[in-house]
């Protein structure tokens, strides 16, 4: 096989992946939270739902922060 274009920087790929994952989880988590009728839910179901959705949002935030830091670091280098 004849050599082609130089490949992508693996560190940049990971940074973009982290950032994208974080944004998807964050947007999805927040929209689900705001669209859900929390008041009409059974208390136990509401509790499990809140734990579940807040975990997704926290993971989303963590990935947005981690991805941004990695992205800036890669761009700087």
């Amino acid at each position, binding site marked *: *096989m*004849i*050599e*082609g*274009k*130089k*490949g*992508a*920087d*693996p*560190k*940049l*790929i*990971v940074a*973009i*992946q982290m950032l*994208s*994952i974080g*944004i*998807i*989880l964050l*947007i*999805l988590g927040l*929209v*689900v939270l705001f*669209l*859900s*009728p929390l008041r*009409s*839910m*059974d208390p*136990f*179901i509401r509790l*499990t*739902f809140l*734990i*579940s*959705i807040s*975990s*997704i949002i926290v*993971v989303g935030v963590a990935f947005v922060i981690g991805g941004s830091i990695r992205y800036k670091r890669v761009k700087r280098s």
Partner: protein
Amino acid sequence: MTSDFIIIGLYLILMFVAGLFFSRNIKNTADYFLAARSAPWFWIMGAIWATNIGFLHGYLAHGGAAYEWGLIQANFEWFQGPFGYIMSGLFFIAFYWRAGVYTVPHFLERRYGSAISLIYNFAWIVIFVVTIAAEFYLGGLFLKNLLHIPFWPTVLVLAAVVGTYTLLGGLGAAIMMEFVQFIIMMLGTMPLLFILLHLVGGFAGIKEVLIGQWGVSPQYFTVLPDIHHPYGPGPWIVLGQCLVVTLGWCAGHQSMVQRNLGARSLYDAKFGYVVASIPKTLGAFLYIVPMIAAPIIFAGNGIFVERADASYGKLILNLLPSGMLGLFIAGLLSAGLSSISSVLNSTSTMIVKDIYERHLVKGRSDHHYFVAGRAATFAVIALSLLLVPVVLKVYLIMWLEQTLLAMVLGPFMGVLMLAIFWRRANAAGSLAGFITGGFFAILLGQAFGVNIFFEISWWSFVVTSIVTVAVTWLTAKPRPEQLDGLTWESDFRAKLGQVLKERAAENGVKVAAVQRANIRRPPWYLNIKYWATAILLSQIVLLLFFG
């Protein structure tokens, strides 16, 4: 219900847009097929589990089987799955890395020649296309039954979303989406377990109602039942399912292996595979244990379930409030989409790297094969969509898939084990063994009426091994240069380190990534062997409790 539609629509749009955004960074075949060898271990962990869990192997089919047969279905999650992940991570992945291959058939080709590789390749391509068609079919049917939306538009939307990000972004996009799907499935669908246990009075409450009041057999709560169990006799689960099918699946399924080959180092590949057995174990709490409690909920609410594989959908529809239902459906779609994207990407890799580049159009530019990869992905989606009307019944799909798997996995494990651990094994022996084992599997199923998939796999593995050894002894030894780097040797670790150093030197931009390989010693808390031991011990505890 409107909010659920908004959530599902938003989820699909986010996937679509992220896939488009990511694809701008993909420049050559290594980026497309192996994600620029960039994936850290936590990507591998999430991607492997999400690849493994789909509509077919997860919520709908496995959940439905648990509803019908009980806790025996958890043997996939608590016994075989972790065993297969750990053994593949500890032993097999290093061989693929050392051989520097893109695909499993490529490894077979280097060790045994192109004949067996092509047979294996074609068999898996057929299995993969059928699997994608089945996943589309189940996804469309699930949404049609649950939300009463038309079947074909749903299937086409799913195909457009998953097709776009996989076609444009390759393995990198697939792994990225699989991690999102891993999080949504793990965190988004876990509440069902707690809600159900709260409603039925815990696991003891389920047992009390099912065994005490309804007279259900205690075997319904056993992971490894006795030999007379009609669905999965314990000994065959251990021999056929665990040692042959699951290990063959984990070490020989291109989608599973390809995620490891996309890792940034051998350490990440191995560690990611080993720790993927943690979500695999937890998977039983997402769709097996809840489905064991489901009959009590259905009886209490007067719900009639006509087919076992529709039970999970009925359960969440009747139990969950709006909003949460949308998140659950997004979780279930995640399972299907992750499975489709991984299989899609692997099929195109096998078509382009193993058939097109090596046998049909040789010596073209990297860009040519990169474009061919995207064209192959498109062709596989189109072919799978054409097959959807053909696979009309779920039982037909499962039968076709399991027959093909029984024909492939037993013989594959036979020739793979001999390839690695017996230097004398040669091309003629392995080809004869592989073909005989495959036909023996069909014979057992069709002529002798053996209908236990695990039993067929075990005997086809045994026959393959015997025939391979016999024919090998009667034919010439392989030349030493044919075996270089492909078999187990006493100095395997040292040679592996040398190969990885050479790869780093040859491959300019990947130096940093490859140098991180298993040459360095990780801190104790990231030691692969400690994690593997701890996970295997936890499996033993689970089996002692539920065995």
